[in-house]
């Protein structure tokens, strides 16, 4: 039991350290690769997947 707790705690601390190092977050986001360079000149060419996010 104690040994299992030590293993569990090691996993928790490892996860905590990794999460802290990488800045883990629950923010919902979507990663899209290779968006066109032209966005800077013409922002309208890009449509956010969150643009139709339901809101008030």
């Amino acid at each position: 039991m104690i040994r299992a707790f030590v293993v569990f705690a090691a996993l928790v601390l490892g996860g905590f350290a990794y999460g802290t190092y990488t800045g883990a977050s629950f923010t919902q986001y979507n990663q899209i690769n290779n968006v066109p360079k032209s966005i800077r000149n013409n922002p309208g060419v890009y449509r956010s997947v969150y643009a139709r996010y339901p809101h008030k």
Partner: protein
Amino acid sequence: MLKSRCPACGAGVTFQSTVSIMAVCEHCNSTLIRHDVDIEAVGKMATLQVDASPLQLGTRGDYRGAAFTVVGRIQLRFDRGLWNEWHLLFSDGRSGWLGEAQGTYAVSFLTESTQDLPSFEALKIGNTIELRGEAFRVENIESARCIGGEGELPFKVEGGYEAPVADLLGEKAAFATIDYSEDQPLLFVGRYVEFDDLRFANLREFDSWTNSTSPRVKSFTCIQCGGAVTQRALMQTTSVVCPSCGTVIDVSNDNLTVLSKYAEKTKVRPDIPIGSRGTFPDGTFEVIGFMQRFVTVEEIRYHWREYLLFNPFKGFRWLSEYNGHWNYIKSTPYRPAIMGNGNLYFKEQLFQHFQSAQAKVDYVLGEFYWRVEYGESCLAQDFVAPPELLSVEQTDKEIAYSLGRYAEPEEIRQAFHLTTPLPPRIGVGGSQPSPHARKAAQALRLAGLFIAIAFLLQIATLALSQNRLVYQTSLAFNAADAEKSRVSDVFEINGRPSNVMVRTNANVNNAWVYLSMALINDDTGTAYDFGREISYYSGTDSDGAWTEGSRSDKAFLPSIPAGHYYLRIEPEGSGSTSYSVQVYRDVPRWWLFFVAVGLLVVPPVILFIMQRSFEYKRWSESDHPMSKFLNVSSGDDDE
């Protein structure tokens, strides 16, 4: 040392101690009185009864660093059997006494009392008397009868005289005896000692204990039914039960008498047969007696069983069994301090009161060191400090304290090499050590350590994080604009892949704005797309003023690699408004720390609940059941 000849038979007689005035001739049993250098024979000494004492004249030992030799003995009979007072001659010339009865030993010295001693009639069990500045409690009052003496003694002894005596007990096993057989009571003060502490040499030999000879047992015919009866612990026991008819026979002298008869028809079979020998950490013991006792609580009888164990050198031990839970018990000369709440403090340990009840004997088998009778009762009180049990049994004549230790059934089985199964364990035993207590404490300590490690990691994160503003801008949202999307300037994000915080503020009032945002890596073309709503409403109603929402928001994007980035922002809203955006790199946060702490305390909490559940079951068998599962203090719940 005086060497002379016996006036009666001419055999050599030696007085080793200068304080000895009497000796018994080893050859003719004459009582010899020393007058300076002359020796007078004044008659024959009564023959001593054969007993199973491990001591003999010439036995050597050590008491608190002082060597002694046993040079004489007075043998007495008291209520529970035979009692020997061995006369000790110490190497420094002192004369002392070693009292020995039923395997208990006490060394004492004749001491001058500094005050008048109470009369024998005034003594009562439990009374406290101050002797030489030390408080002693009256534990036993007896009228013993002298059987005779042997060896050399410091005063004249004759068989048959009455010796009213009181045994008293002080702190830390201090012992005192007041002997009322003289005109002026004599006070002997000393200490209870363990057999092993006296480091004896030249002890008696016992068949089957010190050699491989078959054990010597005494057999006789039951005076009630004629069945065969066996006595194993010769002269150490005073009552023997006939295995055929259950009659308890007084064997304290040759005139066997019936003490009591068994009236019930049901026989109880001991799980450990009489005559079995078991090995425990303090020696090998033989089962010589078995009894079943009970207490009645709310008209229900609760039975338990006790086994009397015997070793000719170590004396007696007990094994008790209730619901499959065993305790290995030994009487103790130490006395506990009584706490205000009814608990006891014993040997630097708190023993909680568990149960008090009038215990009665309803079945016996084998032999016992007192005159056991069916139906005999005493007030039995149990106090527990698992795995230890302190048992207090009180009658009108004495208070007996015993210290027990919980024994696992497997330990009992192995000790006696039993092949038959022992009764299964039911519930939790009063002194049963909790398998969770140590683990719960250990887990709690470990959890503290792990939380400290997590806290140090958090502190290191706070100290080492960049927490740097890398970009900020202010923008306006006009609902009438055809193209509302905006892109920011390119800004640099550096360091390890870490989080990016995008903080937005919007000047909204009873309105909302929704920002579809993308953090785009200008070098790789990777976009991190997310949306945030900012809404703020306020007003008044019958309860007064109210607000809802916030004019600011924070979004955290994890594991953003270093590079050149810009933001694409596409707002929507219920009306035109201005808003600002700030981008921070590598912002330390606390939420993960609290999640880690929450997870780390889960195992100790589970173990704590298991521990409480165990204690709940334990105390449900006691006089103090826990009324609430999570009560920290058991024992006071019903008061």
